[in-house]
């Protein structure tokens, strides 16, 4: 890990080619991407047929799709200096809401109008939880960790109350066309949706006033306030955005698994946070990119996939992700301390 120090910054022109390159090299994305490529190369060398074939590559992208959607929202939240632990249970809750609406209007045979209606309801439910998080953090002055831990429990509990503990299925059309469909027999729809989310929200973060204010609020909230940015309102929007994307993930999850069970969503928040942090988003707020987050999500997915192919017990993955997360945060923290010394 290197840090840019004042001495490293060569006096280049404002938009010169060297300026661009230097800026790129300073970003973590390049290094994280190197790690990803390195890991993939190792697995591909060990099991070329099984790992590098089109089927497995597709599997990797399908498995990364839903975590990417969650981690994109998480990136915005972490850049503001916050955290959203509730994404996994908001995903489940949104899936339940969507499934309920669809079940009440045709169930497995529901038509596209019903599916659209249910999806909108699911996304709206997710956004609602996001708004609750935002209000708790800003108006309630509850630390994000606690506020979203509270909504984690509430959303999960309410999802179970609503389903009475039973599992709801999804309409066939939804699972066939969104969950399992391959466009031109190659491109999984799930991965395309995730890619679209990453591109649109990546643009929102990097190129718009909303994104710029997100960085400003995380970087120095008092400074943001003094230039007239409505910090509370912005934070509420960012948490709502995270909730909205958890809602989208809930609908995608329903389409993929035709199920609303909680199983396998308990560590969704861990993987979303790990994705963002591995991708270079600082838990201290103020910096991070969506491109980095996408790479950061792909790393554990690729490792998981490779371990399965190699026949290693998968539970090791959680150990690995947890350890890597702690190490990544340690280095981020160290880097900040060194840099802020002066």
């Amino acid at each position: 890990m290197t840090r840019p120090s004042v001495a490293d910054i060569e006096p280049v022109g404002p938009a010169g080619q060297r300026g661009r390159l230097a800026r790129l090299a300073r970003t973590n994305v390049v290094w994280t991407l190197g790690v990803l490529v390195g890991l993939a190369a190792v697995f591909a060398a060990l099991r070329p047929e099984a790992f590098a074939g089109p089927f497995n590559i597709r599997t990797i992208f399908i498995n990364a799709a839903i975590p990417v959607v969650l981690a994109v929202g998480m990136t915005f939240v972490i850049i503001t200096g916050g955290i959203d632990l509730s994404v996994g249970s908001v995903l489940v809750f949104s899936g339940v809401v969507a499934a309920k609406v669809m079940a009440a209007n045709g169930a497995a045979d529901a038509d596209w109008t019903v599916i659209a209606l249910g999806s909108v309801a699911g996304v709206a439910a997710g956004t609602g939880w996001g708004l609750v998080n935002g209000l708790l953090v800003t108006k309630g002055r509850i630390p994000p960790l606690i506020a979203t831990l509270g909504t984690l429990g509430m959303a999960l509990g309410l999802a179970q109350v609503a389903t009475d503990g039973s599992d709801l299925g999804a309409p066939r059309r939804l699972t066939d066309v969104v969950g399992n469909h391959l466009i031109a027999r190659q491109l999984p729809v799930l991965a395309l949706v995730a890619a679209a989310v990453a591109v649109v929200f990546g643009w929102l973060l990097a190129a718009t006033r909303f994104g710029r204010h997100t960085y400003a609020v995380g970087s120095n909230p008092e400074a943001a306030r003094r230039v007239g940015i409505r910090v509370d309102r912005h934070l509420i929007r960012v948490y709502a955005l995270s909730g909205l994307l958890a809602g989208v993930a809930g609908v995608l999850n329903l389409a993929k698994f035709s199920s609303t069970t909680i199983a396998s969503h308990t560590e969704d928040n861990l993987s979303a946070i790990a994705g963002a942090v591995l991708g270079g988003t600082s838990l201290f707020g103020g910096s991070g990119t969506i491109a980095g987050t996408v790479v950061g999500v792909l790393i554990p997915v690729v490792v998981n996939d490779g371990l399965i192919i190699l026949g290693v017990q998968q539970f090791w993955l959680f150990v690995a992700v947890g350890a890597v997360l702690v190490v990544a945060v340690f280095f981020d923290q160290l880097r900040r301390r060194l840099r802020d010394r002066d």
Partner: protein
Amino acid sequence: MPDPPSPALLSAAGVVKRFGHVQALRGAAFDAYAGEVVALIGDNGAGKSTLVKVLSGALRPDAGSMTLGGEPLDLRDPLDAQRLGIETVYQDLALAYDLDAAANLHLGRETLRRPPLGWLGMLDKDAMRAGAVEAFRSLRITLPDVTVPVRSLSGGQRQCVAVARAVAWATRVVFMDEPTAALGVVQRRQVLDVIRRVRDRGVAVVLISHNLPEVLAVADRVEVLRLGRRVARYASADASVKDLVRAMTGAVTTEDPP
């Protein structure tokens, strides 16, 4: 004290501000005239920064009245002040350290692309970068690169960014809370030049500084704050460092008796 004949551009009277048990301002008064540099001086903790925050909308006073151009002034937040052409260089600089100089210069006032992309809030980064380069050039402030995070700039360079941001937008009043505190000789002279140039545009420049020779060199007038109250006013031409020190330490009080 002899007041200039024209009415003050910005005027405050009886300003009170408490922080819990600490009473930072106890009925402070202040005046600034268009096209002048007025120094606001006082010992540590006299209430200078607090007064500036009140006058720039960053703090709401507990009591007191303010006018701008003769009109009553009620600032709910810094944005109100900015809309009226009042800008501030805060003592803590108030920069977003993860953003670059160009972004900081335009923070809260971003230039957007032309519609339709502008409707979506898309930034015109090239225009802002060019604007920033131009702003620094016109103030003769040299920055190595306006595209690196402000965090990686030196203390003096950061201060220059904060100064450039305020003067780029100010049309009536600019407050500078110790803008030269972290600067070397060359940059200090640069900032003082900037202050004179802004004054010559007809803006009222309010300078807070502990450097009394510097104050007498650059300011047209001096107002002295002590224990949250204005205790003296001088025309720089008529005052010596000794006069200022005596007023700051309470040896003389020429006005606003408790």
